[in-house]
């Protein structure tokens, strides 16, 4: 397949097809959960984990297609001024049910509920949803989104109260800043984070460029994902 347009069409068609199938699976799972969740809490829990995995496959596909298009220079961001509250809600609302059944509390706190920012809302929603589905697997019982202004830009953080990022992962981010190099050493998590980093970097204002950062909370040691956008 030497023609890049052909390859792109094939990938896009495949991704769309799989995504459709996944959303069907997700929908069916949700209906089953609705009908059994009172009688069979254990099975409900398992089904909710399945829904999460379906969500992860979905995210991975989006990343793969997105990175491919970035590579072939056919990736087209669409910037617009949007309400950050809406973007966070759009990224989280479809996981509400799963979070509840897993006993995870999701907090959303905005320094100012009226913050509007120039971003590609679809891409940023994807970044936040991606980080959320990952954090659900590692947190104990809390996830907190915060949005506030910092260093002349917009900062969105997601903090969990799990064990925190392993040192290796935090290094992965600091070792390859802006190099556009992908390391698969750390398994699948690398791809998602790499994609998030690329999305952040697409956001520019003057000389400033967006970035992501992985740290652990200084007090309770939970993982803190930071997205900064100029």
């Amino acid at each position, binding site marked *: 397949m030497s023609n890049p347009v052909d390859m792109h069409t094939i990938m896009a068609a495949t991704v769309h097809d799989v995504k459709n199938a996944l959303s069907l699976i997700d929908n069916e799972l949700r209906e089953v959960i609705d009908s059994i969740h009172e009688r069979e809490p254990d099975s409900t829990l398992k089904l909710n984990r399945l829904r999460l995995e379906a969500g992860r496959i979905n995210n991975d596909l989006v990343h793969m297609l997105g990175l491919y298009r970035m590579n072939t220079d056919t990736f087209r961001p669409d*910037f617009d001024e949007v309400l950050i509250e809406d973007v966070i809600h759009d990224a989280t609302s479809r996981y509400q049910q799963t979070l509840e059944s897993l006993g995870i509390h999701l907090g959303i706190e905005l320094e100012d509920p009226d913050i509007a920012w120039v971003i590609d809302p679809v891409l940023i929603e994807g970044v936040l949803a991606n980080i959320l589905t990952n954090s659900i697997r590692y947190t104990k019982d809390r996830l907190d989104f915060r949005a506030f202004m910092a260093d002349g830009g917009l900062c969105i953080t997601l903090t969990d109260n799990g064990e925190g990022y392993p040192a290796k992962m935090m290094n992965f981010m600091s070792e390859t800043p802006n190099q556009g190099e992908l390391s698969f050493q750390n398994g699948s998590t690398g791809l998602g984070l790499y994609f998030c980093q690329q999305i952040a970097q697409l956001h520019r204002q003057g000389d400033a460029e967006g970035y992501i950062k992985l740290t652990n909370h200084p007090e309770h040691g939970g993982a803190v994902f930071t997205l900064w956008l100029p």
Partner: protein
Amino acid sequence: MELNQSLNKKFLLIDDFSNVRKSVKGMLNSLGVSHVSEASNGTEATKSVRDQTFDVILCDYNLGKSKNGSQLLEEWRTRGWLSYQTVFVMITAETSRDFVMGALEFQPDDYLAKPFAMDTLQNRLDRWLDRQSALGPINQALDRKDYPALAKAAREVMETKPRYRGWAQRKYVEALFHQGQMTEAAHFLQALLDKRDLPWARLERHRIDVQEGKLEAAERGLKTLIMLQPNMVEAYDLLADVQMQIKQPEKAQETLSQALVRSPRNIARQRVFAGLASDNGDHVAATRAYKEIVSLADGTMHESSRGYKDVLRSTRTQLQSLDDDALKRRLQKDAQSLLKKLIKQYPDEPDTELFSKAYRAYLADAGDAESTDRVFLESVAEAAREHMGDLGEDSALDIVDILYEKGLSKEADALVEELRQYHKESGNFVKRLNQLQAEPITQEARRHAHKVNTEGIELYKHKDYQAATKLFEDALKFSPRHPGIILNFVQSSLLLMGQTRVSLSQLDRCLDIVNRLNYLPADHYQYERYTSIRDKVIALHAKVKHEQPS
């Protein structure tokens, strides 16, 4: 608060699947919405929208065989059937979201990807109703098209409701545009852009640049904007407009073709592109675009006989410059089937009747024996002269052109003469008629003739009458009726004979050729030159014939 807010709101749910409607209605009910009307197709939905006012419309994009959601929205907005106070939400299959978002001129207020969970619906519902109440005065002003009120309402939202500031800013600029307050709009946009880069504000500022004639600045700025925001199709439209104004029609065509790759379903853009392609001599692209328009318009408010006529006209132009017989046959076959559809779908339009008769004769389908007879075309010419009032300008030119092409020059000239009288107030149309009569030939041939003629004029200036005459004669082969070329040929021939020797046969030829201009109307700008040269030829001819009675 949200529950109370939604209690008395009226919803309309449009989806072609009853089980989908049932499930969404169930969700809405459990969120406290009790007034939910349903529609299963475009016709039902349109009826509901015209009969009642809704607070929120949830419309599935794909409605089966009926018009799709965006076609409904376009029609309702254009005809003023949908209040701006109604929140219109497009429901799309998740994967088609990009497609729908990029492709539409008439933007819905929101999109919802399906399937959606109850939590998502609740979340959005709060958002829609909050926005509807916060922006009430703006939307009322939009409904009334009251732009001073719109400006005032938008200003107020900007100052008091930071949440909707960005949205109100756009409406404010829109209000200023409608009131012609360009300087104020420019200042306002510049102040926004000084704070931060906003793609929409950049586009609007360049729109003002174009209005003020700052074409170079607009061209530069729009190119940068497109580089940064390649999905912003309106920027391509504006850039193409600039490129047409600075006389770069090929570049304008290229720009629009890029916009069409991103958003192919816009009929207005397709039409501008087709016109440009046609002017640029790219008849393949023009025909393709006109065909696309016919298929996009199918079943929508845009459907009309015009679309078919455009394709047929463009195909005919394309056929004139084709050598490939197989391709010619295929195009002819396509055209024949389009012509049949045109005749079937628009039986009561007098213009269409004359137009399609002429095209039947032109396409000369072997199965349509009547149309291949010369008498048939003569009757078309006759009918056209009798019904000039029914005949649109483009169709009239088509008929004249086809008459010339089929060798009925006398009938064509007669029709042109009467059309010229009938439309004498319309200078532009008369000009096109004159041009057609002078050069009833293909654009390719026209272009070639002009090129050769220009070369001839250069040689003529250097007094090389021999070479010049040869080139003018060459040009006449491509454009046998063009006044300028005819007169150049005759004038150059006369001077050549002055340099060398006078030949009766050459004078005969000159007389023949100059007589081709018998049709020239007295107000034609070449008329005086024509009569003076003609008289010279006649005088010389008589003199030589007298001297050389061979």
